[in-house]
């Protein structure tokens, strides 16, 4: 034999055995392949098919079957392209938040103006026009974002690339907070719409809201396309209902048949409780600006669209702006012309009162409008479910958020992001008692902060690149930045005391957290990265192997046998609680006739783990070689039998996990194993 040691054959999934046939020339090759294992492939390249996902145990199979019923069949990675959406499906998925805002934006502005009395409500229409004007600017500016950044990422990416990392993180934090609030506010508003025609459910709005969030989670875990298909019909139903309501209302007004205004259960004081000041008007504008939320979702989710992604996204954005404006202005016009007054305690929505006035409470259209409004408000929460996980995955890929946020689930959805969003939104919903009015002040700041950062970022981009048409783009985005910046200041000032301070406080905290996560990943990467000078696998000296032995049994024998196969330097150690039991163990060990040394450690305080850890420390100090601890672990047949065993090996593993220079090897001994230790 040459100087090289003979290496045993490495395990292989494919073997080719040539067999002699009955006749000369009838040789054939039997290909022994992993058929039935679910692994497909050859030559060292294998693909795990869906069959590998089948759980072995009954419990696992039942769990998987339950999951499949709830969220559907697993999707192959190649199905990603099929999971994309067109304009018709993209509209309900990405624009439902903005479109649904039309259901409560009028009311939010009216609720602030009503504090100054019925007369102040006349200002609702001018405020609505101002909001629509800002939306038009936002749509125009966002279309530039889509064209400049067709891979999505929206405000975060624009701000990061043009203003720097911190600005990007500020935009991302603002959007993440806003997405959470979108889910909480939309769910609360959806429940409020239901409680408008079913007042008896008003006390249960929190549990109902939580149940609805759970439903949305299931819908979104089924994947983007399926979620879109599930949510498309209600969105279009809402639009249809609104078109019907506006047509009838406008027709009645145009023909001089102005319907009498429905009276709210608990109206505001007609004379007002505060004077009509500029600040109050600005506050009303800030509240009405809630209707602009959700308009950033399309720019963030451009990759969700089918090709050509940019064109589809821009078309959906324009469609969204148009639909919102028509419904919002229409409802505001009807409310102010009819003379609707908001309800102090949110028992009945303005939307419900308008519908009741125009078509009557007993009309099928009333029920249709209320139900479709409730559903679309819930679907608006879905925009949060589309935006948050995608943005979190972008941040996770940039190592600003934990890596789990970038993991794609069995239905190609970002399951971790969806679950995290649901938990956060549920906590907020419960904390604010499911009130839309209490939640709205927290809202919109994030959106306008992100808008302002992305618009100003684009201005810098156009200035830097000077592409053809850069001047026009720069003017549009500068104007957009100025308008959204102004709205941001107005919202922050007017809603500061009402709860906006929480968001303003949270954003820097979240930025610090994201930055901290990034620094951790950077440190880990620096520690793990291979330098060009060390491409070879390092040669490891045979380690010192310590085998803790509780008693001499089959599990211990198996662990000792394995330890000896790893290194010639094996040391067994036994912890005894008394001298007598230690002596007895040593006698038994000697009867074993093995060449492995044993140390018996007496522990008069009956502790097993701590003396063993100190023993390992002492060995480690006296020897430079790496320490390997081989643990014999008995594995019972059923999971519940674990409770009957002391789990010393598990506790030791947990204690050794963070110990440097220590390798821990678990040698499980399964209950049904035979005593065949000579195997192999």
């Amino acid at each position: 034999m040459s100087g090289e040691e003979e290496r045993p054959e490495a395990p292989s999934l494919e073997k080719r055995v040539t067999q002699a046939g009955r006749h000369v020339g009838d040789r054939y090759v039997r290909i022994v392949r992993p058929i039935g294992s679910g692994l497909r492939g050859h030559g060292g390249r294998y693909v795990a098919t869906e069959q590998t996902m089948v759980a072995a145990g009954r419990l696992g199979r039942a769990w998987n079957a339950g999951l499949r019923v709830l969220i559907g069949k697993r999707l192959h990675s190649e199905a990603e392209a099929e999971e994309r959406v067109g304009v018709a499906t993209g509209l309900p998925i990405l624009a439902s938040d903005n479109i649904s805002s039309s259901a409560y934006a009028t009311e939010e502005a009216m609720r602030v103006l009503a504090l100054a009395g019925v007369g102040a409500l006349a200002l609702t229409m001018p405020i609505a026009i101002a909001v629509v004007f800002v939306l038009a600017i936002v749509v125009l500016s966002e279309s530039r974002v889509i064209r400049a950044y067709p891979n999505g990422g929206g405000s975060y990416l624009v701000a990061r690339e043009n203003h720097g990392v911190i600005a990007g993180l500020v935009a991302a934090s603002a959007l993440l907070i806003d997405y959470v609030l979108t889910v909480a506010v939309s769910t609360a508003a959806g429940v409020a719409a239901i409680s408008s025609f079913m007042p008896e459910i008003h006390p249960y709005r929190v549990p109902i809201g939580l149940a609805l969030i759970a439903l949305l989670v299931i819908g979104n875990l089924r994947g983007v396309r399926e979620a879109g298909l599930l949510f498309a019909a209600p969105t279009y139903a809402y639009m249809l209902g609104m078109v019907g309501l506006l047509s009838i209302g406008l027709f009645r007004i145009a023909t001089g048949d102005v319907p009498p205004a429905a009276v709210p259960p608990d109206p505001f004081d007609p004379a007002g409780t505060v004077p009509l000041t500029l600040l109050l008007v600005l506050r009303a504008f800030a509240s009405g600006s809630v209707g602009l939320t959700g308009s950033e979702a399309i720019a963030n989710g451009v990759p969700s669209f089918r090709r050509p992604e940019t064109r589809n996204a821009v078309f959906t954005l324009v469609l969204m702006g148009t639909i919102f404006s028509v419904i919002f202005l229409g409802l505001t016009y009807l409310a102010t012309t009819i003379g609707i007054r908001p309800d102090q305690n949110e028992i009945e929505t303005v939307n419900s009162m308008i519908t009741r006035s125009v078509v009557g409470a007993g009309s099928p259209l009333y029920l249709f409008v209320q139900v479709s409004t409730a559903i679309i408000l819930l679907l608006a929460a879905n925009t949060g479910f589309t935006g948050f996980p995608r943005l979190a995955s972008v941040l996770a890929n940039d190592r600003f958020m934990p890596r789990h946020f970038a993991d794609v689930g069995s239905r190609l959805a970002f399951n971790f992001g969806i679950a995290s969003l649901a938990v956060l939104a549920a906590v907020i919903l419960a904390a604010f008692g499911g009130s839309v009015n209490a939640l709205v002040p927290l809202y919109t700041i994030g959106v306008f902060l992100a808008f302002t950062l992305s618009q100003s970022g684009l201005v810098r981009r156009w200035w830097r690149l000077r592409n053809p048409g850069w001047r026009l783009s720069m003017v549009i985005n500068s104007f957009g930045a100025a308008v959204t910046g102004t709205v941001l200041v107005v919202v922050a000032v007017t809603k500061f005391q009402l709860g906006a301070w929480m968001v303003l406080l949270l954003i820097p905290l979240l930025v610090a957290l994201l930055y901290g996560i990034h620094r951790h990943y950077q440190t880990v990467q620096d520690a793990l990265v291979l330098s060009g000078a060390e491409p070879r696998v390092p040669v490891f000296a045979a380690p010192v192997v310590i085998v803790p032995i509780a008693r001499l049994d089959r599990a211990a024998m198996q662990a000792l046998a394995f330890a000896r196969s790893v290194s010639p330097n094996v040391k067994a150690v036994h912890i005894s609680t008394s001298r007598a039991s230690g002596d007895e163990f040593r006698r038994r060990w000697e009867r074993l006739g093995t060449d492995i040394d044993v140390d018996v450690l007496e522990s008069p305080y009956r502790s097993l783990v701590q003396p063993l850890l100190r023993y390992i420390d002492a060995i480690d100090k006296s020897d430079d070689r790496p320490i390997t601890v081989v643990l014999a672990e008995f594995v019972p047949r059923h999971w519940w039998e674990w409770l009957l065993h002391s789990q010393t090996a598990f506790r030791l593993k947990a204690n050794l996990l963070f110990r440097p220079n220590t390798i821990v090897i678990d040698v499980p001994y399964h209950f049904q194993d035979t005593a065949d230790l000579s195997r192999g």
Partner: protein
Amino acid sequence: MQPKRVLVALAGTSADPDIIRLVASIAKPAKAQAIGIHVIEVRWNLPLDAVMEQELDRGEELLESAKKIAEQAGLALETELLQARDAAAAIVDTAVERKCDLIALAMPFRKRLGRTYVGRTVQNVYVNAPCAVLAYRQEETK
């Protein structure tokens, strides 16, 4: 006949599911073992153990789907993939080696020159197999 071990030769045609179900109806009452094989024929200009990726993938796929069909029919089908110059010789040799007492093969209904066509493999297995052979031909498509 009460076979103890049945060899099912699978070619990846539309007749495969039929022959698997047929074998299941024979093997189940007799508690016979069933072995499904697919033979990749290797052209003479290639070495016998040449790695033919497409054929291997196809073979694996059809054996996996055969296993599924057999499972649905209540039959545990052991599968094997072979490479040979001549499929018929490999089928017969495997049947001899695995001590099978029945070889089952299937062919779709085909016509050549106006006459029903039985392929070379089916003919050669029929002629050379020392054990019983069950050749199933699909009905004529209208």
